[in-house]
């Protein structure tokens, strides 16, 4: 059913934002028709041929999965690509393969039919499971089945390529499709199926492209070429938006967002490790390391000719999410693996600092996604887990201490709520130190220890925490969630998640002021750091350090260099005294920027989405 573009009305679909960001562009409708095999009786002499064809298909499948696995490893790193390893095991599952061969022989049925029937039966068992995570795993088997059927039915290779930069729309997308499309111009994807913990959603986050899942029946209403807005902030897909909506989003995309990674240009040019406001106040800049795959890119950029000697020395990692090494891998790395991981980072960035945050698992960050807790965000997570599992904790602290040997490692604890917890955590650090001393292993006895301030209790009691630590780092994402009682992953209320809420800003100010009084540095490592509208506020609060994703460093420096700290201080004071809503805060900041003719500087410095596609082209 083809309709005239002009007459097409605006449609809105609600889904779940699997990966943040906003993409605007034409739709690319991807049909992944499911293949079904027909049954027919085989002649006895055909059996040998059918079994040969089946063996050829499985060997072809192994080759192709290996190819995709290699691309994935290069694009998203080893942990995220491990799904393809499991797929490899599935097509090599001798038990299933021999059952299929047996059935071809005994039932005299074509290979394609037997593959379809055998694997469908297995997928069906998972689809019937009560557990949503188990149900999502049925997709993995279905994926293997379709791959084998494609070879057996001699279907052409799926063209996983988009010519024009587009938003991919489909009922389902396999992890392999996502990786292959990401090599061409995919701005984002929106699919009817899937869940936040499905493998394809995890890959979207690794690739850094906005994505919506669980749109139910959106795909059938969309044709290739339809204008789309994929709103990965609010979990909405808008089809054929009116002019006004489109303009609004374009503005938001250019001005408000800025968390993406645009690696099409050199990341570092000149003195980006320290930004200076026009009145000469310095703000140190650092990088957050989210995915292992970024390390190589960051390192290459850091050592490139356009990076000043000073940046090479100072630009380090303000936040390393060590749990990243487990999450996509589903497993805690052992002590030996951690020794290597942390030592490698410390060496690569030496003499620049590397801030290692101990495992922050639980809540949204558990890969497997079946939380048995009623309120996982208010549950057993972060430092709470570490304190309850001393073996695990000491097994992480020792590798961190060993990596500190050359004096450029900083330690950070997540999710600290009480002073008592912090004291106990420091107690474990001392215990790990004495274990190392007993073995004669060197470590940095002055390794700075800090906490993430992300629970309102820690911000309110910042004065009580500061004497025990060397620095604070504000985790604005969780601080916002906990202050506003909003789960930003919940699509019904995610619009209430407002980092510029005056209540959040006041808690940040309390934290920074406590640091100032104790003459200890305070940094911020949440997404707020790369949010252009927040820059004047951060400068106004006189934050010492801002840690953002690598590609956000330079735009952030550009913004800071254009601001006058004294003016920002006045703005911040005014906002903290008068603003009662996030809209109010934004209005005052925008007015401040427009009075100083800074709007252009700020919107140019914001990154465009769709960076994933460009990243792939490199």
């Amino acid at each position, binding site marked *: 059913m083809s309709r005239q573009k002009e007459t097409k009305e605006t449609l809105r679909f609600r889904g779940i934002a699997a990966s943040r960001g906003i993409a605007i562009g034409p739709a690319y409708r991807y049909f992944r028709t499911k293949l079904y095999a027909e049954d027919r009786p085989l002649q006895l002499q055909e059996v040998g041929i059918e079994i040969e064809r089946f063996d050829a298909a499985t060997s072809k499948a192994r080759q192709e999965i290996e190819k995709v696995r290699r691309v994935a490893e290069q694009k998203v790193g080893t942990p995220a690509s491990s799904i393809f390893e499991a797929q490899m*095991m599935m097509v090599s599952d001798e038990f299933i393969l021999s059952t299929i061969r047996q059935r071809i022989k005994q039932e005299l049925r074509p290979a394609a039919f037997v593959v379809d029937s055998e694997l469908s039966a297995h997928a069906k068992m998972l689809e019937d499971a009560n557990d949503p995570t188990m149900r999502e795993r049925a997709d993995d088997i279905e994926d293997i089945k379709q791959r084998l059927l494609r070879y057996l039915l001699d279907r052409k290779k799926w063209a996983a390529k988009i010519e024009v930069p587009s938003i991919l729309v489909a009922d389902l997308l396999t992890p392999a499709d996502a990786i292959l499309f990401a090599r061409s111009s995919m701005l984002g994807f929106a699919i009817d199926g899937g869940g936040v913990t499905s493998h394809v959603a995890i890959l979207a986050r690794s690739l850094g492209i906005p994505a919506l899942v669980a749109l139910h029946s959106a795909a059938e209403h969309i044709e290739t070429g339809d204008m789309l807005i994929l709103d990965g902030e609010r979990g909405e897909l808008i089809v054929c938006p009116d002019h006004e909506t489109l303009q609004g989003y374009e503005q938001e995309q250019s001005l408000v967002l800025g968390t993406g990674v645009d690696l099409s240009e050199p990341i570092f040019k000149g003195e980006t490790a320290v930004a200076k406001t026009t009145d000469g106040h310095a703000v140190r800049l650092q990088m957050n390391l989210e995915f292992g795959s970024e390390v190589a890119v960051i390192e290459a950029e850091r050592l490139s000719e356009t990076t000043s000697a000073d940046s090479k020395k100072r630009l380090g990692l303000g936040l390393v999410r060590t749990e990243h090494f487990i999450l996509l891998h589903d497993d805690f790395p052992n002590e030996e693996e951690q020794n290597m991981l942390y030592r490698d980072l410390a060496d690569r960035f030496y003499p620049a600092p590397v801030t290692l945050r101990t495992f922050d698992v639980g809540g949204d960050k558990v890969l*497997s996604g*079946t939380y048995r807790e009623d309120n996982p965000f208010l549950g057993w997570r972060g430092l709470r887990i570490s304190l309850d599992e001393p073996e695990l904790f000491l097994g992480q602290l020792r590798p961190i201490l060993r990596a500190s040997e050359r004096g450029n490692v900083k330690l950070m604890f997540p999710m600290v709520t009480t002073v008592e917890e912090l004291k106990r955590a420091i107690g474990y650090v001392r215990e790990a130190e004495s274990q190392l001393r007993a073995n004669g292993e060197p470590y940095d006895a002055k390794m700075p220890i800090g906490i993430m301030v992300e629970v309102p209790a820690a911000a309110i009691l910042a004065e009580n925490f500061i004497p025990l630590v060397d620095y604070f780092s504000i985790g604005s994402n969780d601080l916002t969630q906990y202050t506003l009682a909003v789960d930003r992953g919940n699509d019904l209320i995610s619009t209430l998640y407002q980092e510029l809420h005056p209540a959040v800003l006041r808690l940040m100010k309390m934290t920074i002021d406590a640091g100032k009084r104790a003459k200890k540095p305070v940094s911020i490592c949440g997404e707020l750091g790369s949010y252009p509208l927040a820059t004047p506020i951060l400068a106004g609060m006189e934050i010492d350090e801002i840690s953002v994703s690598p590609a956000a460093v330079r735009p952030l420096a550009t913004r800071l260099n254009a601001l006058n700290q004294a003016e920002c201080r006045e703005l911040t004071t005014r906002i903290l005294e008068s603003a009662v809503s996030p809209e109010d805060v934004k209005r005052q900041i925008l007015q401040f920027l427009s009075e100083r003719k800074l709007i252009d500087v700020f919107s140019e410095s914001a990154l465009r989405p769709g960076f994933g596609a460009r990243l792939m082209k490199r």
Partner: protein
Amino acid sequence: MIHQTVTIRNRAGLHTRPAAAIVKLASKFQSEFYVIKDGFRINGKSIIGVMTLAAAQGSTLELEFDGPDEAVAMKELAEYFNKGFEEEM
């Protein structure tokens, strides 16, 4: 032939990664290895079989071993189950 009953302890249940790890571990042994759940009996050296048990946290499985190295195979596999697959419990 020997048997042992185990419980799935980790939160995420027996999903893709532990299934792959179990198969890898079981393949080291000569003995045959079966997993029995709710009357289903599957070959424990088949990743697809193990996955399709859809064993969530709290479910009880029976492990069955038969062969020359059955005792050590049972010890190692039961231990892996009892550690909750070294995942968050």
